[in-house]
Every structure is written in structure tokens, then in C-alpha cells.
């Protein structure tokens, strides 16, 4: 098993006719035949991009094709609208890659999604991959391998780093999710941890956090309460100065809070293994897997 996406997932790409959308749709399709079955660009309905039919609206794409996941590449000014369009058309999983959506827009989007059954991953994220089953995002497929570890992260390339370290040690992954670097993410650490806990194939979890907010502290409390599988955590930004946004909109130490030190402390206090070095992610997961087997 894997979580959220697998070989049955049918994907519509919003923004398929754009440069990025077309490039990554191709890469997703090329990865173990991920079912990318439709695209949406308003005004370009009827076109084809690599045999993928383009529709004017998500509703049309859903009516014509077997679609349950949307992958969004539209620019930030239109992305909130695109998410709501996908949810309105009944798409159950929306993966939004777009970086730069205003925070107040995201608050409204999440309020609206809370009333329905659509889950959002991102924005400002690399997407989600269930190795050797389906890739719905911009991550390099080749570094992944099917196996027992669930990976969840607020980062993009640092996730690849963690996954690569696992794969090099022969440790595969059930599903890898980038929840994104924004202050208001669609899916949180807790949402993902709950899914990994329920997934029978997942035997351990690698959670990669960073400075800003309290998501890691909330995850620590949740893990202590609900997660019986071993969790290895890493928090990026121990050397980050206060008051500065470290690239990601959500990575900022504000009012003295959101430091890596506080987060590591909360994770350790909850009995979670914390890797000190970003070079030791794979090694640490390997160790906890051995201890539990």
C-alpha cells in the first residue's frame, strides 16, 4: 500500500499548456505510466499536449475522463481560484506546486475546503510520489525506490536529499509528500502522520521540518499520542537568524519563536529520534528500522 496516490490515480494538470506544466506532465507520465489523463487551460480546450486532451474547465475534464487528482502549475495570482475550481468539480486530491500565493487567499481557500471532502497538498511544494506506482509532482523520480518508509517534509530539495540517502542504503519508500514551505499548508504533518500510521506497508516515518510556526511541536504531541511506528525527524535552520524569511514564506523565526532549538526540544521530549545532521537522515532511519525489527 501507499497513501493518497497509487497506480489508479487519474491526474488532471491545471496549467498543462504552460512550459512548466507540459514539462512536468510529461515527466509524471514517463514515471511508471502515471495516469495523466487531462489538462485544463481556460480558452485552450480542444488542444492536445502529448496526446493529453486539454479542457476549458476542470468540470469538463472530470466529466470526460476518470480523474481524482489535480496537479496545479498556474501562476500565484490564479492559483487559489484553480484550487477552488478543482474542489468544486469534485476532485478529491489537489496538489498545488505554485509558490507565492498570498496568505489571506490560502486562509479563505482552507476555510472553503474544510466544508467539503477535497484534500490539498501544498502550495509551494514538490508534490507527492508513491515510488514505482505514481508520481504527481516535480520531484526526480529516479532517486525513489519502493519500500517501507513514509517521508513527509516542508521542503523540496532537502526531501530529495533525504530520499536519496534512503535509497542509497537500499531503503525504499511507501509515499513521499512535500507539504510545502508556506505558513498555511493544505495538508499538515499531523494529517500525513495519521495516514502513515494507518498504512500497513509503512514501517517507519521520516519527517523533515524547518524553522517557523509550530507544526513540528504539534506533530511531536500527536506522535506521542497516536503514532506507534518509529519516527525520525530533522529540523533545518539551526543557524538561521531571527526575523528573516529563509526563502520559504513560512520559514521565519518571529517574536523569538519558531526556532529549530524549540522544535528539536519538543520532538526529543516526545521520544522522537532527531537526526542532528542533514547528512545522517538515511543512516538514522536505517538504525531505527533495525532496532524495531
Amino acid at each position, binding site marked *: 500500500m501507499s497513501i493518497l496516490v497509487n497506480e489508479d490515480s487519474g491526474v488532471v494538470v491545471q496549467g498543462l499548456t504552460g512550459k512548466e506544466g507540459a514539462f512536468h506532465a510529461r515527466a509524471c507520465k514517463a514515471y511508471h505510466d502515471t495516469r495523466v489523463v487531462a489538462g485544463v487551460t481556460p480558452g485552450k480546450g480542444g488542444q492536445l499536449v502529448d496526446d493529453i486532451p486539454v479542457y476549458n474547465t476542470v468540470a469538463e475534464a472530470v466529466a470526460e475522463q476518470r480523474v481524482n487528482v489535480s496537479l496545479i502549475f498556474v501562476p500565484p495570482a490564479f492559483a487559489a481560484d484553480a484550487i477552488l475550481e478543482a474542489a468544486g468539480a469534485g476532485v478529491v486530491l489537489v496538489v498545488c506546486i505554485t509558490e507565492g500565493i*498570498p496568505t*489571506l487567499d490560502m486562509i479563505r481557500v482552507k476555510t472553503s475546503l474544510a466544508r467539503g471532502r477535497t484534500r490539498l497538498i501544498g502550495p509551494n511544494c514538490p508534490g507527492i510520489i508513491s515510488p514505482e506506482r505514481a508520481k504527481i509532482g516535480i520531484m526526480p523520480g529516479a532517486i525513489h525506490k519502493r519500500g517501507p518508509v513514509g517521508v513527509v517534509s516542508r521542503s523540496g530539495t532537502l526531501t530529495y536529499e533525504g530520499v536519496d540517502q534512503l535509497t542509497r542504503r537500499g531503503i525504499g519508500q511507501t509515499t513521499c509528500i512535500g507539504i510545502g514551505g508556506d505558513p498555511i499548508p493544505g495538508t499538515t504533518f499531523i494529517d500525513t502522520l495519521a495516514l502513515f500510521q494507518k498504512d500497513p506497508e509503512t514501517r517507519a516515518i521520516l519527517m523533515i521540518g524547518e524553522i517557523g510556526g509550530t507544526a513540528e511541536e504539534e506533530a511531536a504531541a500527536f506522535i506521542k499520542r497516536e503514532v506507534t511506528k518509529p519516527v525520525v525527524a530533522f529540523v533545518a535552520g539551526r543557524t538561521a537568524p531571527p526575523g528573516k524569511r529563509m526563502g520559504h514564506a513560512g520559514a521565519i523565526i518571529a517574536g523569538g519563536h519558531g526556532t529549530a532549538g524549540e522544535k528539536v526540544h519538543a520532538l526529543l521530549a516526545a521520544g522522537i529520534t532527531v537526526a542532528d545532521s542533514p*547528512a545522517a537522515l538515511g543512516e538514522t532511519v536505517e538504525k531505527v528500522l533495525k532496532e524495531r525489527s
Partner: protein
Amino acid sequence: MKIHEYQAKGILRQHGVAVPRGDVAYSAAEARDIAVRLAGRVVVKAQIHAGGRGKGGGVKLADTPDQAESLAKAMLGMKLVTPQTGPEGKVVRRLLVEEALERDREMYLGLVIDRASERAVMIASKAGGMEIEEVAAATPHLILKETVDPSLGLQQYQARKLAFGLGLDGALVSQAVKIMMGLHRVFEATDASLLEINPLVTTTSGTVLALDAKINFDDNALYRHPDLRELRDLTEEEPLEIEASKFSINYIKLNGNVGCMVNGAGLAMATMDIIKLAGGEPANFLDVGGGATADQVTNAFRIILSDPNVKAVLINIFGGIMRCDIVAQGVVQAAAQVGVKTPVVVRLEGTNREAGQKILKESGLNFTVAEGMKDAAEKVVSLAGGRR
């Protein structure tokens, strides 16, 4: 994005929030003119993007226009050091001259995004004039909160609740409610990420006013606020960070001697961390962007090497979809173009890694090729002069 107090008060005034009468002065003569117009005792306030200005001597009272002029003369151009500026301080280039008021009580009022509840939250406290984080830590019972429903906005009853909670009565309650409602309008209208009135005061003549004002805007929303973008004061920002932002490079200057060039923000932070673990100090945070193209690498080299403290550079690129040989070609081209003399350690990961490493080794340039993050960090720290 941050703005000055006088700019924040201008925005508040437009939305019906009561603020003292006053204006901005760029010279002592202008400060005098404003004091004459205000006709009475004035306060001269240094305008810098940092709090705690009073403690550093950046807020002073003047009884006459002459006094305002001489205070302004002394303050303009001075380096103001406050608990928030760091020891190097900030040069004062603008002043706010406004009417001095006989205050009765000092309170706190703020509106922030609470990331845990994913809502805007209005915060009020009787303990004004102090850092709200300190109040929250020492006397949490003095913190009042009202969560804003995003589909309704702040409601009158919520504002009343806060006003009564602050111990206000009579006409002061409705004045405070008006300020709170106005504050929420400003928050929505400007896509603010933080709004603080500290202190919110009552005067002996029975009015409620915002005596200080701080607004931060959501950088992601600035595209739809061209008028707010005009308020940016570049003299308040680190010149290298401004230069980097022109090329969509995220750069933050730090105090170490190991320059970093990384693709992706999380990996960039982790790279800084591992430099520290190896006994060195990072000179900067730099996210060169997902692609790491030759142009971007060239720009990044220029920015990193403009910092005279940099003794060695670590390039850490997780190629991913971008092939390593292409990245390596870009790095070589950029280093040659910029004329890089500083030792550079390169760690490349992803497709065609070996081909990329070969290109670097055969370039004839001062590159050290590393395997993995740990090796890269150790090599670069040693090249920068060893552990500190």
C-alpha cells in the same frame, strides 16, 4: 515587507483609525515647520525599521519649534542603536514629528496570522508599551484574543469584548471598537501579515489613539498592491539582499566566512547547519532557485563574493530533474566569467553526477569536488581556515 511608522499611520488614518496629528520630516527645517503647524508640544520620533527606539534615544519631546529643529538636527544622520538593531545600529534618515499627548493608559492591540489555527487573530492587552511576547510569557492572563472568521471578518461584538476586557468604559469603548474595526479593514485591504499598535493609549482628554504603529505586508501579495510597493525604503535593507532580489535569488547575509550557494530553501538551511556542525560559520543563506542555470549561478557568485568575509564557497546542488553535467557547465562558465579566485567546493547530486564532476575537475579552475554533504562541509570549512 516592512514600512515606517509614519507610513503605517498614514494607512491607518485613511481607514478611520485615530492617530496623533503629525507629518514626516527629512530635514531639521521641515521638522520645525511641522512643529509650527501643530502649534504646541511635539514629539520627534526617529523612523527606522526596528523597535525599541525610545530606549536608544530615538524618541524625544520638544516644547517649541526651535527645540524640535535642534532635536531633529541631532537625530538625522545619527546611528540609532536599539535592542532590535544589533550593535551596528541604523542611520536615521527620516523623522516623524507629531503632537505630544497627555496619556492616561497604555495598552496593546495587534492583529496577526495565527499559523496554528490558520486564522487572523486580534490580540489585546492591558500591558502596553512592552514586547507582547514578554507579556505572553510572564503574564499570560493579560492577553486577550479574538479569532477572526475569514468568511465574516471581525465582528462588532468581538471588538466590544476586547474593549471591555481592556477595562475601558463609556465613550472610550466605542472609540476603541472603531479602531479595532478599522484595524481589521487595514489588515484585509493591505494583505498585512502583522499589524501592531503598541501602545494604544487613552488620553487625559478622553480619547483613544494609536500612539505607535507597525505594519508588515505579505510579500506574496505585493503584486496586487502597487501603491504599497512604493512605500519600500531601500536604505533600510541590506544592499546585497536588494541586489539578489533583482535576480529572484533569495540571499540573506550572515556573519561567517563560508559562502553558500544551494538550490532550494530547505537544503540551503540544512547546508548552513552542516557547515556549523563541521566547525565553520556560514556567511550567507542563498537559494539559487530550482534550476540553477548558468545565469543564476553567475549572479549568485557575484553576490556571495561581494561579501569581503567570504574565504571559501560551498556549492550544494541537488540536481533532480536538472542534469548535473548541465549544472557543472553552468558553474564553470559562471566562475570563469566572474573570475572566481576564492576556493570553491562543489557537491553535485542527481542524474549524470560523474559527468558533472569530471567537467569540474577538468576545468582548470579552483574547484574541489565533494561526495555528499558531510564531506563538502568539512572540505569547505578547512579551506576557509579551519574550525573556529
